[in-house]
């Protein structure tokens, strides 16, 4: 998993539990490894580009995690399919993993 | 003919009521039926129909919309449904053709079934059958499907839905296949066609001997009403057109004759295009539609090189259909209609 991809996953995970967070990251890492090469290759190119862009925008400072969260939120609303689908892919993987790995909140 | 006799339902539901065919059909139905429920797409269209008579009830909405369909059939029992709503020339993409022609037909059949419709008369086209192989070949009701591009495919799928609804016992159906219309309540594109012929700007493609069936709106309405009323027509399909197809050059000559007879000067100029121009246009049309795009002039030019002609023997034999109006008389009626409305020809 690329560094930026890890940052994205950490930004999207909602659980405060450190064990759950680690498990989710591990799951997404595995999913990316299991992707067909041609899809993974495309995703790597996007991650490198978007990671650089996010850095320029100052959204990758570890002291300001909300900045990345805001940027990812903006990308998810973007009419540009590439941006929206990038976030949606990670959101989808993280959501699924969190639901499976963290017990459901008592209702 | 009083309402309810001879197999004519007291209530009629008409989709596409504000369209070219619809306006003619509704005016034929209004005096004879207790209620004529009309579906129009835009609110601006409602007054066009409300003026026709007290039996008219207008519903404004989208033929693909389940909620509109519910309103259209609300409180209606055992109606005769005349489904004329369709898209022939979409704005720019072919997607609309399928949404409306297939999706709308699917929805109307479903609601017709739920309303225990007496009969569903479906307005179809020559397009599912393509073009005739030779100028003397004629489409009959047994001709195989050979859809002409995406409109043809969409109307083909709509026919399949209609036939299946009948075969499954959902609703009794009749399919009426109509070729190129002419007659009152014509849309802008037909008025532009008259104007272009008047100015000598409408092209004659090739030598103009290619045959085109046409149908005067009055003849088509008569055919639709017979399709509704004839018991033995259930589950069947009929070509409804003028008595014989016309050569394209005869159509253009007929328009010129009608314009002059109604007092309009007609240009001496004649524009001719080689048959190749239509062939090229058709090729371009194919590519564009393959990419989901629709460009109306390209499509129209592409079709002009072909013979598209049908045989009305079955309608004559089984429905007692006889086309009452011929080309020049019908074109004159169209021109008069335009002039009465102040249309610029």
């Amino acid at each position, binding site marked *: 998993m690329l560094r930026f991809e890890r940052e994205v996953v950490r930004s999207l995970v909602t659980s405060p539990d450190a064990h759950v967070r680690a498990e989710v990251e591990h799951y997404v890492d595995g999913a990316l490894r299991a992707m067909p090469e041609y899809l993974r290759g495309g995703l790597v190119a996007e991650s490198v580009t978007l990671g650089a862009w996010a850095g320029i925008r100052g959204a990758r400072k570890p002291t300001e995690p909300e900045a990345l969260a805001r940027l990812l939120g903006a990308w998810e609303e973007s009419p540009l399919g590439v941006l929206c689908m990038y976030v949606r892919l990670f959101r989808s993987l993280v959501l699924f993993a969190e639901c499976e790995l963290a017990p459901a909140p008592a209702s | 003919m009083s309402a309810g006799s001879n197999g004519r339902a007291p209530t009629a539901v008409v989709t596409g009521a504000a369209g070219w065919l619809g306006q003619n059909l509704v005016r034929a139905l209004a005096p004879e039926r207790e209620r004529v429920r009309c579906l129009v797409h835009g609110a601006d269209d409602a007054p066009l129909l409300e003026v026709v008579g007290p039996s008219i009830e207008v519903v404004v909405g989208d033929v693909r919309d389940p909620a509109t369909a519910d309103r259209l059939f609300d409180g209606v029992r055992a109606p005769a449904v005349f489904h004329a709503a369709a898209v022939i020339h979409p704005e720019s993409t072919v997607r609309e053709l399928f949404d409306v022609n297939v*999706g709308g037909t699917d929805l109307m059949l479903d609601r017709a079934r739920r309303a225990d419709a007496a009969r569903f008369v479906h307005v179809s086209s020559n397009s599912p059958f393509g073009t005739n192989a030779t100028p003397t070949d004629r489409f009959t009701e047994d001709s195989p499907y050979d859809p002409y591009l995406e409109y043809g495919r969409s109307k083909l799928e709509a026919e399949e839905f209609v036939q299946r609804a009948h075969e499954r016992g959902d609703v009794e159906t009749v399919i009426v296949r109509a070729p190129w219309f002419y007659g009152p309540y014509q849309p802008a594109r037909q008025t532009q066609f008259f104007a272009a012929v008047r100015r000598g700007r409408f092209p004659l493609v090739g030598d103009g001997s290619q045959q085109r069936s046409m149908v005067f709106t009055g003849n088509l309405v008569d055919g639709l009403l017979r399709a509704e009323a004839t018991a033995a027509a259930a589950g069947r399909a009929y070509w409804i057109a003028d008595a014989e197809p016309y050569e394209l050059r005869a159509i253009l000559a007929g328009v010129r004759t009608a314009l002059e007879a109604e007092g309009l000067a007609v240009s001496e100029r004649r524009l001719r295009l080689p048959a190749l121009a239509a062939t090229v246009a058709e090729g371009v049309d194919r590519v564009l539609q393959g990419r989901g795009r629709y460009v109306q002039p390209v499509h129209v030019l592409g079709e002009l090189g072909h013979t598209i002609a049908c045989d009305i023997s079955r309608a004559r034999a089984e429905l007692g259909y006889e086309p009452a109006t011929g080309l020049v008389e019908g074109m004159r009626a169209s021109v008069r209609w335009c002039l009465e409305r102040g249309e610029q020809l």
Partner: protein
Amino acid sequence: MTTIDTDVLVIGSGAGGAVTAFLLAQGGRDVTVVEEGPWIDPDAMEPFSLEEMVAKYRHRPAAALGSPTIAYAEGRCVGGSTEINSGLYHRLPGYLAEAWRDEFDIDEFGPDALDAYAKRIEAELAVSRLPGAPPPSSALLERGATKLGWRAVEFARVFRYDTAGRGVKQTMTRTLVPRAVDAGATVVPNCRVLRVLRRDGRAIGARCRRTEDGRVEDLDIRADHVFVCGGAIQTPAILHRSGVRGRVGAGLKVHPMIKIAARFPHPVDHGGVPMQVITEFGPNLSIGGSASRRGQVAMALAESSPDFEEALADWEHVSVYYAAIRTEGAGRVIGVPGLRAPVVTYRLTEADLSRLARGLVHLGEALLAAGATELYPSVRGGPVVRRPEGLVDWWSSVTRSRANLMTVHLTSTVRMGQARSRTGTDSFGRVWGVRNLRVNDASLLPDAPGVNPQGAIMALAARNCEQFLSEA
């Protein structure tokens, strides 16, 4: 290098491969099955869970490139996709068998041709309907359909019921794989075929790479006959890297699904997949239910609206449903040298997109009629619909850039039939141009059948096995 000698090499142990191994072993042949994935105890994991995806899925997920992309999943384990699917069962519709026979010139084929084989499969897998009432997630579909006057049926499933009425899915690892082993077949899991070996125009075996306890070992399997049963994606990929091109890989057909996460005023069940299917709009459009664990519900809700947390907190009231279509368009599988996974593409026509939109609207009607209060479509930006008046907006929502589609059925990449310009094998799965090489899986079906294809695949594989046993 280890070499294994065998009569028949079967590549893949899914619906097609397991039938092939079982029938040929029963027929007295010495059969070796190689399976790329592991052999996993079918009771070890909950269906549709994260554990199951990690262990049994080839990709999580993969997607066919196109506008829009279509996500898909393949099982990569002993038993193949039968270990991860819903288990719904349907015979190949007779009208399709007839149409395919005529269009692709398939010998000894037609509406009744597979009946005897289907019966045998149904007995082996205990194909049956629910002994009791359907669970709420399924009953809701029936309720909506009944209210609208739409035809709906309960599909049979490959489930065996115990005396308490509990159902167990009869996957290949529970049924034909162990029965094949009992009949003398050898199964080699964790063993990937690198390429089929050929000499003088015939298949002579395969070069494989086995991974066991972290150790990687190449091995050669020498066989008189080779059956490729890797599924509609892996089979053409294997053939491509074995130098067999021809009509291999083109013509991929899938059942794209568009989904709705529907919220109800009452709780619904989440353990299985509904068995009711609305068939009113068949054969090109069908409506049914999907796996609805909390994870699947979450993913489905997130797709239509960024404000889904409130609905997710209420997830026990939410169930996921789909509309699936047969398509005019088709796709390709292209093996690329040096890449482990083939490139997969799929093209949808405007007519296909319209059909998907129509399916979504009909699905919405059915769910509202069943009492749903909120509908979250798998369309970017929704909108979320709460009343029938809102459904019409979905016609313009379903576009290439906004629709989120997936498929679980993949077929038709190595079609069968005598019409050689359009098929990759003859009427019985013999690959054109290479002797002793056959395909016996979903790749053979000339089109997607509009119903769950497992039944068709298995009956077809059985028919082809009988032909093989009668000739060799």
